[in-house]
């Protein structure tokens, strides 16, 4: 799915200008890192992709459909075409690891047999075997993060949005997770990932968009980001 931002600005109700005239285009199947200092507007930009926030000014198109003018009823379909890894995990506290991941599939109406097959596979992929029956409160920070990752990958989404997905992970686990993301990207999923992990970005040699104070401060094509 093609993602287009045209002169997008976001001013939060309290007056904070989080994004300032951002224009950018992300092609189908791209892998894009979103970087920038804390408070630069990465999460804000990401939240607009799945319409958690609406631009104050400007237009956003996803697969040529305007997100700003989208009707309330169309929003669930938009979100279901995406996999989202949240910066603060956003796990359902009353559901176990298994149920949290299964929920994402239930939402799109997946068959129970598919769920039964897919969820354990995902749990194994993110290295949480044995934790299926744990509640999020019984997991370590990194384990919670990986549940969020597994959930986002569950439906093999067209677009994967990852907000700081490795912030609580050690280098080893982090690399494994990145492999999963590259893998899903190779299969055609567009991946947009906000991160602070320079090392990781440098090795990835993918496109990097730099945000600073709400503006695009740099857009480096594959392999050109070396900072």
């Amino acid at each position, binding site marked *: 799915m093609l993602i287009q931002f045209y002169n997008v600005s976001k001013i939060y109700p309290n007056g904070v200008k989080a994004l300032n005239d951002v224009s950018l285009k992300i092609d189908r199947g791209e892998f894009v890192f979103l970087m920038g200092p804390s408070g630069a507007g990465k999460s804000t930009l990401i939240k607009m992709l*799945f319409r*958690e926030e609406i631009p104050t000014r400007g237009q956003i198109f996803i697969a040529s459909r305007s997100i700003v003018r989208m009707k309330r009823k169309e929003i*669930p*379909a*938009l*979100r*279901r075409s*995406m996999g*989202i890894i*949240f910066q603060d995990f*956003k796990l*359902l*506290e*009353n559901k176990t690891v298994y149920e949290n991941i299964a*929920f*994402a599939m*239930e*939402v*799109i109406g997946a068959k*129970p047999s598919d769920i039964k097959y897919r969820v354990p596979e995902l749990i194994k992929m993110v290295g949480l075997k044995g934790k299926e029956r744990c509640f999020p409160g019984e997991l370590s920070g990194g384990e919670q993060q990986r549940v969020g990752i597994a*959930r986002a990958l569950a439906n093999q989404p067209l677009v994967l949005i990852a907000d700081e997905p490795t912030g609580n992970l050690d280098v080893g686990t982090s690399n494994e997770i990145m492999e999963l993301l590259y893998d899903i990207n190779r299969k055609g999923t567009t991946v947009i990932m906000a991160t602070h992990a320079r090392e990781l970005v440098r090795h990835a040699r993918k496109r990097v968009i730099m945000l600073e104070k709400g503006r695009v401060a740099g857009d480096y094509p594959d392999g050109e980001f070396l900072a």
Partner: protein
Amino acid sequence: MILRNFNYFSREAFRSLSRNRLLTLATISTVCICMLILGIAVLITVNASNFMQHLESDVEIVAFIDKSVMPSQVQLIGKEISTIQGVKRVKFVSKEEGLEQLQEKMGNKNLKETIGENPLPDTYEVQAENPHDVPEIARTIEKIDGIYKVKYGQGVVERLFEVTKWVRIVSITVIVLLAFGAVFLVATTIRLAIFSRRKEIYLMKLIGATDWFIRWPFFIEGLVLGTFGALVAVGILALAYNSLINNMQMVFFLPLVVKSEVINRLYLSLVGIGALLGIVGTFISVNRFLKV
């Protein structure tokens, strides 16, 4: 597909009921207490109104027959009275019986002897189908030839009707207020329960769940909680009322209402209200948090 969803929704609902134990307990007990209060109020009202009917049906009209009227004519008057619309029963009390009643009341054993001639008139005691028609019927009787006076406790009866009217107004007002109160209390509890799960709802929406997908399990929860709470209330009410009936018959001179249609309809209504409250309360509260 629909069946699958139904299975999924109820599984979700029951899982959440058992995991949010505090919320479950709070909602059930609130519904239960509200339905108990409502039920007790209705039972009291039903019994009070039953009691008042007894009081009212005691009201009767006494028609005094002129001394000059022939005995044959007296019978005709009786017939005429009994054809009046709304008259239930007509009883002839001869002047002799009247004197005996008076003597009985005075406790004067030789009243009959002391007075020469019996000064009392023959009377008809008339009962109305509906006590409230008594004044109207009395006026009709009064117009009959040969009747020189009609008594039905004028003044007292109006007072009685005034009282029963007010008791009814007050009971209905109280029950309506209580019903509103119950609705509000249950709705508040449900709203608080759902408020403490607002992040869950928010998150579900972010993942792409449709409004109905989120609502259904909540509805089923609301239905279960409301119904169950009301059932507990009805159970307590039925136990208490039955034991009251069993013990009261000896103590209390006036029987409690036991007509099972009335009581059962009350119990059914309470369960119905509980269930409805559970669903509607949930609906309104969930909607508040669905706007994401």
